């Protein structure tokens, strides 16, 4: 595999595309397929054949507005159609090059599309994720080739460090620093792991990236492998994401065939393989030491850190663990440079962040925005506000370790530090909007139930503490709790937060603490309305 070969594929692919006057992109992601987009694609292909139009129909990754699926985009004019059914196919094809089918048209001249900045999602919705040629035609694997042939591993790390990229899995640890530690840690073998165990309820950023642009992850991981000196990578992905797994398998096969993965990549002495490991329904495996235990075939129980996986990871070897979105940033950084990347975002949080915007909001879907954008812009401009004339109440970020942010903090910029300051957490990118009808004690109970059932059971505070806190919240929602119960709840929040072994337990009290901080009156109302006798009565 040489640069000429990449160029040849790219040229051929572009030439093939030139043959068609019209390009019809159909979203082929889990959510749109659930709304029959596979049938829409089939119908469009047949309609194009029947009409004999110079038109190419292709399945692509997420185009963002998942609630309006199936989405179809027509290029070169950029018309977007929403809620397309197979029955609409003929009409869409008929109108190609003419005025669009107005009843299906989805206005893209709105903040939802205009305010986004696409780095991670640059290929989503553009390429066919099951064809490596399409990826190559958009300069795919060029960054890898350049890194391998013109840069030393430490130069690669320097570029990542200079970009200011911070881990997108939640805590925001400096990616460059992590890579440096792994590179410097002595070990006869090293490993690179991609954490695709996206377990936060209400988050699907990683699934979309894996389904829509799997080669970007492979390329990012391979560059990382070169930088830290690893020859084996693992993608740990949830078994609940069968389509992502399938696309990754296809991508790995194609990349190997092309010589951009496997032995002697791009004709160099560097070899790197990637295997997929399936999760099996345990949220705690998102924690890196638990994830490692799971890849090793054991129960996903975290162990105390230090030692950190960067020094003592998979089978005791130095191991680099980044999440999907972090790896997806690597290729653009390598291709366009650290300065370009660090010009986006805020002083301490560079680049963009992908969010899964869901809940009580007009535009549900996947968005990518520059760091530093305000929550208000996300919720009211991009998200289109709250439907049915209801009032905004809170937005929840950071999943089960995160918090509920009230109206008063909506103007705060979205970055790692600001979110922590107001008692929430960046997390992996789930953003759930709640309207006035949501009860915050119920919300806190929902997340506590999640943490309780996902606790691995290894350490006492998390195992028993989450169960006790859940019981207290249950009592509150049943209007049976007393002030003493609330005080006990607050005491347990403190103990569990500071004594639990891993992030799951340490973060478990956050939804309670943040709702207590901003919506304490809702807890007090439950206590005032309570019938304290009910708790004692005979069953």
């Amino acid at each position, binding site marked *: 595999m040489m640069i000429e070969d990449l160029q040849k594929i790219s040229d051929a692919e572009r030439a093939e595309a030139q043959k068609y006057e019209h390009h019809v992109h159909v979203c082929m992601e889990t959510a749109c397929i659930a709304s029959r987009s596979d049938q829409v694609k089939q119908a469009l292909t047949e309609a194009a054949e029947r009409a004999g139009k110079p038109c190419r129909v292709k399945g692509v990754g997420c185009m963002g507005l998942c609630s309006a699926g199936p989405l179809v985009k027509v290029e070169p004019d950029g018309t977007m159609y929403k809620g397309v059914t197979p029955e609409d196919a003929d009409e869409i094809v008929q109108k190609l090059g003419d005025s669009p089918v107005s009843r299906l048209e989805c206005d893209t001249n709105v903040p939802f599309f205009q305010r986004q900045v696409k780095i991670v999602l640059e290929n989503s919705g553009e390429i066919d994720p099951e064809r490596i040629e399409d990826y190559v035609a958009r300069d795919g694997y060029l960054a890898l080739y350049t890194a391998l042939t013109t840069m030393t591993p430490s130069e690669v790390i320097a570029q990542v460090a200079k970009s200011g990229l911070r881990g997108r899995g939640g805590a925001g640890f400096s990616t460059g620093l992590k890579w440096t530690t792994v590179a410097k840690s002595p070990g006869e073998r090293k490993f690179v792991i991609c954490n695709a165990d996206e377990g936060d309820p209400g988050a699907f950023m990683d699934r979309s990236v894996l389904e829509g642009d799997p080669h970007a992850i492979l390329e990012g991981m391979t560059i990382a492998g070169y930088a830290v000196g690893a020859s084996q990578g693992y993608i740990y992905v949830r078994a609940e994401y069968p389509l992502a797994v399938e696309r990754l398998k296809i991508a790995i096969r194609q990349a190997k065939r092309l010589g951009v993965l496997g032995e002697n990549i791009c004709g160099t002495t560097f070899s790197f393989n990637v295997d997929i490991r399936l999760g099996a329904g345990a949220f705690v495996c998102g924690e890196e030491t638990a994830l490692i235990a799971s890849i090793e075939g054991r129960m996903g129980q975290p162990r105390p850190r230090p030692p950190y996986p960067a020094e003592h990871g998979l089978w005791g070897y130095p191991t680099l663990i980044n999440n999907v979105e972090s790896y997806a940033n690597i290729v653009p950084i390598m291709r366009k440079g650290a300065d370009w990347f660090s010009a986006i975002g805020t002083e301490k949080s560079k680049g963009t962040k992908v969010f899964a915007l869901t809940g009580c909001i007009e535009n549900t879907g996947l968005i990518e925005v520059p760091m530093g954008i305000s929550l208000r812009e996300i919720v009211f401009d991009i998200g289109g506000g709250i439907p049915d004339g209801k009032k905004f109440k809170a937005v929840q970020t950071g999943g089960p370790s995160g918090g509920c942010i009230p109206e008063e903090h909506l103007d705060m910029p979205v970055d790692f530090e600001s979110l922590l300051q107001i008692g929430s957490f960046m997390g992996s990118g789930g953003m759930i909007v709640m309207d006035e009808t949501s009860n915050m004690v119920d919300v806190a109970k929902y997340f506590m139930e999640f943490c309780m059932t996902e606790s691995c059971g290894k350490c006492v505070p998390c195992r028993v503490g989450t169960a006790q806190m859940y019981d207290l919240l249950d009592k509150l929602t049943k209007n049976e709790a007393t002030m003493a119960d609330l005080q006990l709840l607050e005491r347990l929040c403190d103990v569990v937060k500071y004594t639990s072994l891993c992030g799951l337990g340490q973060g478990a009290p956050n939804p309670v603490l943040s709702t207590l901080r901003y919506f304490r009156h809702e807890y007090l109302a439950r206590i005032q309305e309570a019938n304290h006798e009910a*708790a*004692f009565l*005979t069953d």
Partner: protein
Amino acid sequence: MSKVRLATVWLDGCSGCHMSFLDMDERLIELADRIELVYSPLVDPKEFPDSVDVTLVEGAVSSNEDLEKIRHIRKHTKILVSLGDCAVTANVPSMRNSFRVGEVLDRAYIENASTQQQIPNVSVPTLLRQVLPVHSVVPVDVFVPGCPPSADTIHYAITELLEGRTPDLSDRSRFGA
């Protein structure tokens, strides 16, 4: 100097703590100089007095009658002492808590009864969903664990309280002994 008004009550327990109390033997006579026992299974009065300085509670809260009693006592007591494991932890009576009340009654009065299989329901208190330690129903000031606490421990706890101190039980008593 007026005597300290002391009460002892017996909720759901085996009366072992009261036996241990009596095991103070001759020290009871010394205490009698400083204490007036105003209410107790050991003395005559049937009504809990309006104003009591210290109440020792033996036993867990098992029935609606226990519940009413302990609330009344709390209202009229300055210092409430949970005496013994049943009061402190709900102990042996709480072993029924893993089961539903109906299951327990069935087992006791139907399945294991050879004659007159019938769950008593006339002039007996209603059982609560769970047997509870005293402090989960009303605030408790002093905890004296033990099954039962020894006479020495009880004597120590009472004399400390008489001196106006909070008894430190670290070397004297533990759960189960």
